[in-house]
């Protein structure tokens, strides 16, 4: 007798099985990437810590009331004016930093009534407890944008590349020390100092 050949396994239903798996994954997974505005909270002050006394001209005050209106440096403002005002304040360079050095890279007006130096310029956000979260984020975003724009300008001037582009380059080439140094340099020249005051009740 001739040997019987082993019958072939029918692969016709393979597609059905794969479709079933596919649909399962489509249903149970999500595709959203988590993105957001990154912030670092200040550390808890040690007991008995006395906060340093700041000159009023070095503080850029942003108040948000419960009707989601903004008061910036005592002036009523719209959301799209905040960025320019913040940039002007940070970039002013009217005086010297702690070591008595002038801000050589500032392109601002050097008004003695505004901030002394980017490393001394502090932005303070105070909101009401009943402020909506959306406008609060909008302000955070505008202030972040102010710093980014200033850093971009400085990056273009020093290295011919914007700060954002440098950071992107670093992501593709994480071990590049030279790039890291450049980014740190720009960050140190425009340090981001944003403080959030206790909200009003």
């Amino acid at each position: 007798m001739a040997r019987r050949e082993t019958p072939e396994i029918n692969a016709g239903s393979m597609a059905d099985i794969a479709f079933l798996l596919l649909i399962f994954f489509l249903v149970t997974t999500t595709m959203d990437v988590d993105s957001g505005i990154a912030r670092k909270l200040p550390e808890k002050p040690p007991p008995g810590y006395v906060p340093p006394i700041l000159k009023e001209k070095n503080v850029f005050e942003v108040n948000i009331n419960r009707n989601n209106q903004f008061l910036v440096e005592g002036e009523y403002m719209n959301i799209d004016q905040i960025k320019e005002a913040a940039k002007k304040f940070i970039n002013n360079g009217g005086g010297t930093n702690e070591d008595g050095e002038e801000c050589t890279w500032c392109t601002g007006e050097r008004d003695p009534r505004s901030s002394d130096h980017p490393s001394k310029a502090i932005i303070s956000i105070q909101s009401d407890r009943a402020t909506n979260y959306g406008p609060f984020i909008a302000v955070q975003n505008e202030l972040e944008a102010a710093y980014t724009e200033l850093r971009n300008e400085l990056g273009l001037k020093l290295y011919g590349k914007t700060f954002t582009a440098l950071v992107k380059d670093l992501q593709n080439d994480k071990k590049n020390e030279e790039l890291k140094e450049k980014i740190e340099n720009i960050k140190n020249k425009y340090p981001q100092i944003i403080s959030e005051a206790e909200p009003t009740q």
Partner: protein
Amino acid sequence: MSKFRKNKKGLPAISTASLPDIVFMLLFFFMVSTTMRETDLLIKKPLLPSANEVKKLEQKSLVSTIYVGKAKDSKYGAGDKIQLNDKLSTVKDVRAFIYSERAKHNEDEVPYMTVSIKADVNSYVGTVTDIKAELREINALKISYSSKRGNIKDNF
């Protein structure tokens, strides 16, 4: 019979042998590019605020998420609710939540852990401030205000 066959020769059937391959390819694409849905939301899906200075959160395993929004079920009452893991909680539970998240990781990874606050556009800053105060107490200082890319005008 032979006549019948001759007529059919004109249109050969399209081979479906590669169909499983195509489907598997799709399957792998989805498996790689998506993440498992971890928690069932007990609050209404937060409508995230829009911003254009957003940064992507890297290393998902190091991110713990706190949801803030209105409860789906009216029995929990109106007002902003905080959801940690699978249940609605109060601000006081935030500490325990962060400690349990930290326990899942090595000690040297703890400084890189980020807390992502997913709050609804219409929730109140007060709730978020309370959470931040708790986080500060236990030194969980890296936070991210979760927001989607868009025009900030949408936040009003």
